[in-house]
Each structure stands twice: as C-alpha cells, then as structure tokens.
C-alpha cells in the first residue's frame, strides 16, 4: 500500500467512501479501519454512568467497582473490535456483464491469513451479506448492485464491517476496488420482426422456417454454436465439424442502427439489443452496423458478445 499524503490523510471521504479505487489486494489495518460506538454502545455508556450515580448516592464501593469494570470493558472492546477486522485481506474478483435493469454481481475474495476467527462479518454493497471465517481460511462473496443504464458500471464502495464482540462498537472499512461490469442495453420488450435488409429481404421468412432442415457439414469455426457441432465425427477423430441447417447459410440479416425503430438513441439501441438476442437464439447470421462501426455478419457466442459490447459502449 502506498503511503498517503498529508492531504489525502485528512480527506473526509476516506471515512465514508474509502480511498482511491485500487486493483491491488487490500490488507485491513489501522489506516483503513474506522471505529465508532453504536447506539447500543452509547446506551451502554449511559448505563455505566447510571451505575456510577448509584455508587455515588449510596457510597457503595462495589457498585463503583462494577461501574469501572463496565467502563474498562467498554474501552477494551475498542481493541477487540479492531481485532475483528484487522489483518483481513480483500481482493477483487471477477464480474459478469449484465443487461441494464439487472443486478451486476461483483466477486470479492476475502482472505483471513491469521489465527483469529471472524465470527460475523458484514459486507455491504447495496445489500448486506454476512459471513464467518475460520482462522487461516478464505472465502469469496458475490455482491450485487442494481444497474440502470448501459455502459461500464463501477462497483462503488464495498464496506466490510463487524459489531463483534458485544455490538457496542461498529468497526468498518470502506474499500473501493476498480471493479466494473459491462452493462448491455436493456432489451426492448417489443416483439418486432427483424428489419428488412437488402441482402435478406426476400428470404427472411423462409429462413426462419427452414432453420431445422439439415443441410450439410462445414468446418468448425470459432464462434459456431456448440449445439451444432457434429460430435459423432469428432468422436471418430475426423476433427470438428459444424452441422449446417436449412436456414443457416442463406439467412443473413443486417441490424442497422439507422433502421431501428425508436424515438431516441437509447430506444434504438434497446431494439437492436433485442434483435441480437433473438437472432442468436434463432441461429441466424447477423451483421451489425452502428454509426462508425460495422461488424460483418456472424454467429456464435463471441460474435454475440462483441455485438452487445458495441451496443453497451456506443
């Protein structure tokens, strides 16, 4: 961890949203961990004061002693609270692309390299996950964050916190990882037919119908659907072939931004997204054009992702 400059050290944001986003694993230490009493802790302090008052009024030394014991426990709990987080190493994991409106999942890896058992850790992004860690163990947790718009969705501040042992103090550490998930546009809910493109105009209907008729074999190319692989031939050691069906080769559509219906860019992108999904599902070769970007017709998971990515980042 790089040392902080004096200015960074006194930034209030460290307290709430954490330090600058990082790729590195973060070890929780006194720089990252903050402690404040909870409501219950404040009430506990009031309880201690009340006992002191009783001791004072009745001049009772054992009540004094009990009050002092509670006060000391309160004080020492600060150390134990700190201990409940200190030494943990948090690391960013993977994240998956989602469609807008869905929750993006971010994986956080938590490593407990020391001999301290962690009983009740709370990890919060938008919702809170609880987990316990044995000494010398690791765990991963996936935190979900709801997405609204397409593009890159950054994870924001992940807060790990604990109230162990007595719930009198909340100890927390806000951490920002440079974690981001790609968010594709939200697929339009309208079931519109594919656009009529010059190349596929006449055969479009036919192609969709005939998609089930076996047509022949061709050499497997990366991006071809796994479902279409001719496994029998592969088993015989003949190499990878893709089965071609009736509609496959002739059916080819162009998904064009300019032809997509919609009042604004977002609606058009949303419709394009819908078509991409439908075309991929139907097994149609689809080409794709956005202003300033043309993706030649293709098919398969890589092609599909490439198209959605282009839509997300447009």
């Amino acid at each position, binding site marked *: 961890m790089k040392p902080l400059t004096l200015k960074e050290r006194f930034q209030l944001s460290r307290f709430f949203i954490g330090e600058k986003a990082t790729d*590195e*694993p973060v070890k929780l230490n006194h720089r990252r961990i903050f402690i404040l009493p909870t409501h*219950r802790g404040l*009430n*506990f302090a009031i*309880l201690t004061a*009340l*006992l002191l008052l*009783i*001791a*004072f*009024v*009745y*001049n*009772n*030394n*054992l*009540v*004094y*002693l*009990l*009050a*002092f*014991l*509670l*006060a*000391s*426990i309160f*004080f*020492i*709990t600060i*150390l*134990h609270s700190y*201990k409940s987080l*200190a*030494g943990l190493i948090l*690391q960013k994991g993977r994240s998956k692309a989602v469609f807008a409106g869905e929750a993006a999942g971010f994986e956080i890896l938590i490593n407990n*390299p*020391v*001999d*301290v058992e962690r*009983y*009740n850790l709370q990890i919060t992004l938008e919702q809170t996950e*609880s*987990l*316990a860690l044995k*000494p*010398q163990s690791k765990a991963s947790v996936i935190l979900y964050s709801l997405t609204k718009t397409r593009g890159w969705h950054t994870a924001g501040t992940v807060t790990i916190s604990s*109230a*162990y*042992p*007595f*719930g*009198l103090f909340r100890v927390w550490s806000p951490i920002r990882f440079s974690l981001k998930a790609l968010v594709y546009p939200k697929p339009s809910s309208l079931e519109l037919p594919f656009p009529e493109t010059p190349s596929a105009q006449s055969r479009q209907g036919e192609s969709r119908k005939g998609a089930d008729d076996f047509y022949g074999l061709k050499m497997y190319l990366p991006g071809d659907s796994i479902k279409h692989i001719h496994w029998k031939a592969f088993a015989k050691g003949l190499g990878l072939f893709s089965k071609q069906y009736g509609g496959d080769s002739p059916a080819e559509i162009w998904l064009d931004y300019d032809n997509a219906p919609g009042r604004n860019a977002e609606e058009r992108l949303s419709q394009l997204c819908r078509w991409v999904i439908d075309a991929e599902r139907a097994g149609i070769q689809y080409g794709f054009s956005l202003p300033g970007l043309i993706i030649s017709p293709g098919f398969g998971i890589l092609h599909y992702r490439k198209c959605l990515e282009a839509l997300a980042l447009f």
Partner: protein
Amino acid sequence: MNNAHNKNVLIFLLSSIGLIALPHVGHIPKVLSVFFYLLLSWRFTGIWKRNWLPNKLMVFFLTVCGLALIYSQHQGVFGRNAGTSLFITALALKLLEIKSERDLYLIAYLAFIVAASQFLYEQSLFMAAYILFVCCVLFATLVCINSGKPQPGAALKTASIITVQAIPMAVVLFILFPRVEAPKWLMFNEKNQAKTGLSDYMKPGSISDLGLSGELVFRVKFTGALPPPRQRYWRGPVLSHTDGKRWTQVKDMEFGRFLDKIVFKGPPYQYTLLMEPQDKNWVFALDMPAVFALPLSRNANYQLITDENPDKRAEYKITSYLNYNTGYITRTEYKDATQLAGEPSGKIKQLVKQLHGFDGAPEDFIKHLLNYFRKENFHYTLTPPLMEENPVETFLFETRYGFCSHYAAAFVYSMRVARIPARVVTGYQGGELNTAGNFLEIRQADAHAWAEVWIEGMGWVRFDPTAAVAPERIERNIDIEQLVQGGFISYMPAGAAQEAFNWLKQTRQLWSNIDYNWQRWVINYNGRNQSRFLSSLGIDDIKAMLYWMVCGIGLITALLSWFLLHQKQKAVDPVLRIYNRFCKKIIKQGLQKGAGEGVKDFAGRVKKKLPEQAADINRITGLFIKLRYGRNATLDDLKLFKELVEKFKS
C-alpha cells in the same frame, strides 16, 4: 435474526437473568420474587411454545399487576428496596416483550442494574465473585447476539477473556477515581437504615444495616503498655430498660443508686483520649475508668460524661484498670437490671431451664448460654434480616443471624428471665493500632454492644456473647500481622484457646483475614482512606490523581494492544515467513513477486536475473513447495530451508 439463533440467545439470556435475580430473593418481598420467577418461567416455555406467550392486553394487565405489587409492598418507588423491586419487576415484564435485538440489549442493561443493586445489600467477597461471573454470562449473551452462529462455549470464553483483560484497568480506576461523598440531600432516607454510631437506645431489629463507616470517633495514646486487644472495651451508654424491642437508659440516674466504692486491681493504664467532634457529650473511656479530671464526670453507670460542648475536638487524660470489683448494687438497681417487658414466653423459659438458668449458679448458666451460642447454628453478620416482632425470640429461635446488638440483647434478656441482674452496655471495641504514631484509632465501624451481669462478690462483670460466635470480630481490629501469627483467642472460656490450632480454625482465621482486608481495602475505601493511601504513595492532590489515572490507563492500553497484536504476528506460518524473507532479498534486485504469481514462475524470473545462483534458487523453491504443500516434509527440511535462505545473497 433467525429462529435457531434466537433460541440459543434466549436460553442464554434467560438463564443469566435467573442467576442475577437469585440472590435478591432474600430481600425483596416474597410476592415479587414469585412474580418474577413466574414470568421468567413463562418466558422460558415461550421459547418452545411461542403461542403460549401473552398478548399485548395480557402484558398490559401484568404490568398493572407488577406496579400494584410494588406499590403495595413499598408505598413508592424511591429508595433502595423499592428501587430494586422496580428494576426487577421491569426486567420480568420486559422479558415478555422481546421483538428485536434492541429489546435483548435493553434486558441485558436492566440486568446489569439489577446485578449492581445486589451490592447495596451484600458486599461480601463471595457476592462480588458471583456477580462477576454473572456479568460474564451476560456479556457472553451479547457475544452470542453478535456472532453469526451462536456457540455458547466460545461466547463465554470470549466474554471471560475480555472481562479479565478489563480488570487491571478497573482496579486503576477504582484506586484513583476521586471519591466524593454524596451531599446530604441526595441520600435517600431509608426507613430501616440506622446510621452507624451510637445512639442512646438500641433496637436489635431496626439497626438492620450497620454500615461499615470508617469515620473516626476518637484516638487513644497510651503512655505505657497497651491493654491486650481483647480487653479494649470503650464504655459508652448503659441500657437497662427494655420494652421488649428497644433498650434504653434509665431516666433517673441519681435516685436510689448510690455507688459502692470500686476496688481496682492490676496494672493501671494511663492514656490521652482525643475525641473527634460528636453530637453527644459521651466520652468513651477504657473499661473501667478510675482517674479523670474535670470537665469529666462519671455517672451511675460508670460512663464518663463531659460538661463541655462535644462539638469540638477535645483531649482528656484518663487512667483505667482492667480488673475491678464494683461491689454491691441497690434495690433500685436490682429492679432495673431484672426488668422485663411482660411475661417471657414459654419457649424462652424452656431454653433457660434447659441451660440450668433456674437451678444453677449464675456463672454456670452464663457458661451454658455462651456455649449454646457457640455450638448452635448462630451466625455473625452485619446484614441480618429484619426482626420486627419479638426480636429476641425471632433471633434466638428463627433467624439466628445477627451482630453484636442481637447477641447482647438476647443474652441480657435470657439472664433476666433467670432473674439474674444484667444490662446492655454499648460503646466501642478494639481499635486499630497506628504503628506510625503508636496510637489506637477507634472508628464508627468499631461500635459494639456487650453485656454486664451482676454477680455476688464480683460486682458488674463484662461478658461478650458476640465473642462466642465471632471471636474474629473482637480480634480483628488489631493490625493484620498480629492476626495472622497470633492464635485464635476466644474470650470467654480459657479452655477453648488450647484446641484452637486445628486446621479448620486456621482456615477460618485465614478467611477472616481475607475478609477483613476485603472490608478494609475494598468496601471501606472511601474518600478519606483514599487520600490517606494515595498520599502514602506520594499522590497528594486531585491533579496528581488524574495524572496517574491517565498514565495508568495509557500504560494498560499500550500493554493490551501489544499483547493482542503480538499474538497475530506469531500466527504466520514459519515456512511462509522464511520464504518472505527470501522474497525481500530478491526485491533488492528490483524483482517483485506478483500477487497471483506462482512460486516456480517467480523462480524462473529470478534465475534469469541471477543466473549464477540458479542452483540455490532451485533448492529454495523446491524446499518451499515441499514444506508448504508436500506431505512428508521433515523438521530437517525446515532447518535446511532456513539456512539456505539466510545464506542467500543477492
């Protein structure tokens, strides 16, 4: 909070609350104890049978019931007894309404208050240990609430560890926290609480809480030898008249009481007595004063009275003798000393008869009665139960817990039933020897009551029934070393002293020593004792106290933090630690192991940079893999690994 979680926590919480309220059963009204444990068991069954728990209306009804009970028992909610009852009832009612974690916390906090209120009744070492244990259980409950899966054993362990770690700091606070006595208006006037110190009457039942006030009453400096500790009786008012409950002085001190000349024997004790300001004009001379000067005078009961204003500190020179014979008594005195309030009950007569009170010599009866106190199950305690009706009988036949005034009253009463003239003498007993100044300090806590019996030919003879039950009460106000090495000295029968050195009595004495120190250093550590103790350490003013308090807490915190963090360092695998040292050596070459980089890949990179040491790097890497991931690594491997890394030069 899920259900199973909830159940464990509840069992824990309810058990600890049952434990906390247990010692209160003795002193809160019985109805309230029953009410409390009824609700507690109700809640306990509610853990398994949720539907059986009361609904809102029922809870409201129970609340009204509880309040009515408190009011009927205490006529209010202020003061120690009513306050305790209030908290216990509130705790019981809150138990029925557990909805969230917040309620659990409220209950735990209430339970802490109930636990503390226990100390207002009893301050023994046992009680302190018990409450400490109970507090650990309560904290364990909090741990259970805050761990994901409650494990009662682990929670109790954590709570105990933290509590033990907190004790040093609590002790520092206890010693150094400035004690200020509460102003008078803050003192709740407890109807049943008598202030320590002597008054002109004694009522065994009413002085239920003889606090251990350390307030100084007078100091005595002897010119010669000191009288033996068990003979240090400082004579105060003599109480001859009783109405069955109260013992008072006779009103007319002159008429019909002309004194026979006292014959003094043995060595004289000369001393200077320094009285602290008092509100009564009594001067507590060593029993029996012989020579004194004006303004002192001796009344018909051989008590010294001063004519001057007792409000100021005053010094008197007195000579006393321990052996004396007061001679005969007059008919009026005989009448006073055998007076009883009404006919004694059959039970007492039966007892007196059984102990040969009616048919034997007075000396024999006295011996039998003292033996009776010693052999039967009588206890000495400073917090006996209240005895409202027939205090003497209640004490003799039912409770059998009491302190000096109970024993003295019971003794004198029994004497009178046997038509033997007897009376109660109050005053002080013992005194602490201040070795620095070589004088005795007599404090309010030394207040005592004993008996005098008139015996033909011997005059008034002093008997102390308390000594029969609690010899340590008579012995304890001498300095501690004397107590430890000196044997068990029973006052009355000389024969008992011989058999004193069996282990049981030694244990008892050791215990009484511990208890005495507990009382002295913990219970009675008030503002005055504190400033005396601290100034002996060179801490004189409040500024120095605060300074040392902050220093002490700082030191303990530093030690604790070091202790807690140090443990973590130790936890790292030695193999990994050595390997990290190796990596550090490589860093000097500008090569750093990536976070996810394999050991072998890293070794490959290092070898490229340091080709001449490739063999060593290979061996280190190989050993590391064997030690960390292999099955049959030996200690020798570890040794070799360490050696190689240490020798490695980059």
